[in-house]
């Protein structure tokens, strides 16, 4: 047996460790690639939080870029991103539509009254069925739609200043220019 071949087990071990390191560190296993990117926002029909008599549909989201933000009062990360949504709405004039996901309408209204309302309208999704259409598996999740209602960006987790600067903001800029 040649001397070099003594190192084969070590090399194999290093390879396994390397693959394991990449496999476990590069990708957050909780983050699913979005199946809806580049697809039209799904058809839906749901009541508004502040006007439950009125139902809105996909058509109400068309005509300009819209950020659809799925949130709930039971979701701490939604509270964490709230200030950034308020800032984005005020500073850029981007239309933000809320989807109140599996929540109590009363609590949702109190929450928005207490912390401020960044949404042009809030859609109720008490049983999470719009959430299923959107492939939502936790809140918050946000979808950026172009004027034709195509999903051009999806974020699972909070919208924070870094996400706005690096990912969302430039896309919104492109949509508004183009």
């Amino acid at each position, binding site marked *: 047996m040649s001397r070099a071949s003594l190192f084969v087990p070590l090399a194999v071990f290093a390879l396994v460790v390397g693959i394991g390191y990449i496999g476990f560190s590069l990708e957050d296993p*909780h983050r699913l690639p979005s*199946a809806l990117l580049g697809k039209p926002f799904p058809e839906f029909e749901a009541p508004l939080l502040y006007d439950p008599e009125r139902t809105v549909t996909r058509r109400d989201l068309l005509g300009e870029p819209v950020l659809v933000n799925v949130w709930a009062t039971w979701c701490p990360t939604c509270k964490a991103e709230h200030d950034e949504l308020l800032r984005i709405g005020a500073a850029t004039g981007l239309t933000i539509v809320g989807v109140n996901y599996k929540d109590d309408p009363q609590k949702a209204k109190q929450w928005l009254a207490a912390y401020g309302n960044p949404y042009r309208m809030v859609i109720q999704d008490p*049983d999470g*069925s719009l959430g*299923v*259409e*959107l*492939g939502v*598996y936790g809140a918050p999740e946000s979808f950026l739609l172009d004027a034709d209602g195509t999903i051009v960006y999806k974020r699972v987790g909070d919208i924070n200043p870094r996400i706005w600067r690096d990912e969302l903001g430039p896309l919104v800029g492109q949509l508004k220019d183009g």
Partner: protein
Amino acid sequence: MADGVPLSAVVLAAFALVFAAFVHAASPVDLYEFDSAEQEARYRALIAELRCPKCLNTNLAGSDAPIAADLRRTVHRLITEDGMSDAEVLDYLQARYGDFVLYDPPLRPATWLLWFGPPLFLLIGVLVVWRMLRRPPAAPLSDDETARLRAILDRD
């Protein structure tokens, strides 16, 4: 400890209790109605086959996560109200949640390693074993070497 009850029986009973608790926790029960036993069987097979998006390795049938309950309700609705076939239900969920929800992922370039990795590793293993078996046995020691070996072994 009660008289006359062997310790092993007590331990066994304790294990049984703990295990029963796990079984219970792992099977959330939804009381859904079906038009036929066949529909119910399809529902059970589908929720066993679909993966809960929030959990890393639990199927819809075994998860207590709210999203799993929502998806079980969705599967029930798709079967009983929309009359979808099994393949249509799988397509419906895959279109929204991606390959992740399928425990049986489709064959495509991104999943080649997943599908061909295990046979590949088996092949490498077989090659290694084959080479080891094919290696000629070591030549027998010469008389000189035998004498040296004996001297070493007898040294102490």
